[in-house]
């Protein structure tokens, strides 16, 4: 930046040089948090269907009598509904666990919906086995429900981390602004004495810090992409889909960091100049 646009010498102010590096690190964390939240949301959505139902697997030879078995299971205490699972629906239910495996022979399944309230999976399994010999209660619904709860909590935690990183970004900007003001106190006082307005002074500082924060966040977001891509490739079999990264949210990091820096710096400078004559 030429001196004609930088009479405060902000480019040379040492603290300002640290801003891009610090913001880049925070943006990287924010990017990972966004990726975590996005991935957890995808997993939670993926397991939503699986968590909604319990299933009973019948021996293959019981397939012709699946409707009768479903009626007997539906009569069990605590069971609201029992119905044979359509093979396509079955493939959908199992996809979180085995992926796309069209050649794999699948057992006949009955899907259960329980009445509201707590249920002991072991006791229910015993009742099912008693009602339909050879039938086995699959507990993946319970596991899926637990996994979905975990994913939802990971999502909330990621958003909390994101909020903390945003707060840290504001705090770092505040410290950098104060350091810049201290380093350029004489220059600020001079241009104020020469007729600069408070808005002019705060605008110069805020624009400079916002630019640096934006650049830092851009670097952090770019660095986050390969890390998230690696994580997404690992999580793809669990989450299904193509493991797309949250590019829109990552793209928002630089303008968000710049906005936080601009507002924080503006308020800080104006507060400093508040008592100037």
């Amino acid at each position, binding site marked *: 930046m030429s*001196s004609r646009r930088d009479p405060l*010498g902000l480019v040379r102010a040492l603290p300002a040089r640290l801003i891009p590096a610090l913001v880049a690190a925070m943006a990287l964390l924010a990017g990972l948090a966004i990726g975590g939240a996005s991935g957890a949301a995808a997993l939670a959505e993926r397991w939503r269907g699986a968590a909604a139902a319990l299933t009973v697997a019948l021996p293959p030879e019981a397939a012709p009598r699946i409707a009768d078995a479903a009626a007997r299971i539906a009569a069990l205490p605590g069971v609201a509904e029992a119905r044979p699972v359509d093979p396509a629906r079955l493939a959908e239910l199992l996809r979180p666990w085995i992926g796309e495996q069209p050649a794999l022979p699948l057992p006949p399944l009955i899907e259960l919906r329980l009445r509201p309230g707590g249920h002991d999976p072991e006791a229910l399994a015993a009742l099912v086995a008693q009602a339909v010999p050879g039938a086995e209660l699959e507990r993946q619904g319970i596991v899926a429900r637990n996994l979905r709860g975990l994913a939802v909590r990971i999502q909330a935690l990621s958003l909390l981390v994101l909020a903390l990183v945003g707060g840290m970004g504001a705090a770092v900007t505040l410290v950098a602004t104060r350091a810049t003001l201290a380093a350029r106190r*004489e220059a600020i006082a001079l*241009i104020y004495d*020469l007729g*600069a307005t408070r808005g002019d002074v705060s605008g110069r500082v805020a624009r400079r810090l916002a630019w640096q924060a934006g650049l830092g966040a851009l670097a952090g977001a770019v660095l986050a992409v390969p890390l998230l891509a690696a994580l997404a490739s690992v999580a793809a079999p669990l989450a299904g889909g193509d493991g797309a990264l949250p590019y829109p949210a990552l793209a928002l990091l630089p303008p968000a960091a710049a906005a936080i820096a601009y507002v924080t710096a503006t308020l800080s400078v104006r507060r400093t100049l508040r008592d100037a004559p």
Partner: protein
Amino acid sequence: MVRFDQVGFAYPAPEGSRIGATPVLAGLSFTLEAGSFTWILGPSGVGKSTVLRLMHLALRPTAGQIEILGVPVAGARPETLPRLRRRIGVVFQDYRLLPYLTAFENVALPLRLAGRPEPEIAADVAELLRWVGLADRADALPPTLSGGEQQRIAFARAVVARPDLLVADEPTGNLDAVQARRLLALLAEMNRLGTTIVVATHSEELVDYMPAPALVLQGGQARLRGEEEADEQPA
């Protein structure tokens, strides 16, 4: 016009200090007509710099009223003061040059703050640097300049925007006699063109060289050393 009416000023006590505020001025009243040239005289520590700082709005009085270029400062809205400051040129006693800007950029600062176009700035700054004899040092940074050269840069910065009011605090303190007379000639020319000029100095020699009304500060107040006295000085 510059008008001080029963102006008082006291520097606040440092934070945590047991010493109270330090009064510098009390009941100071005078009026300087538009287009006038006035010396402010008095020994060191009497308040000359404080009066100048009040004039260029770097301080607010703790008592009384000040009117600068027809604007009552006490009642002025804060957003009007920057515009008023741009009509005032200041030669600071300690120069206050920005060490990371070249001599040219330092002189150009008031024009850039006023939003003047760059070609106009380049021409005006070059002319001023020629006037103060530093055209060949335009690209030099202040730390590489002598005290006298820095003072001339500070002077050029103060006058480059052709202010309506110029206040100068010991503007020739580091200059040799030739350079001092050159700057006084520039002051006289600006005054002839209508700029109100106020110069604080403790140099009677300077005042002798350029006769003009003089306010003598003493005990926080001012008395006017008569124009008739100034008329008796050699030109």
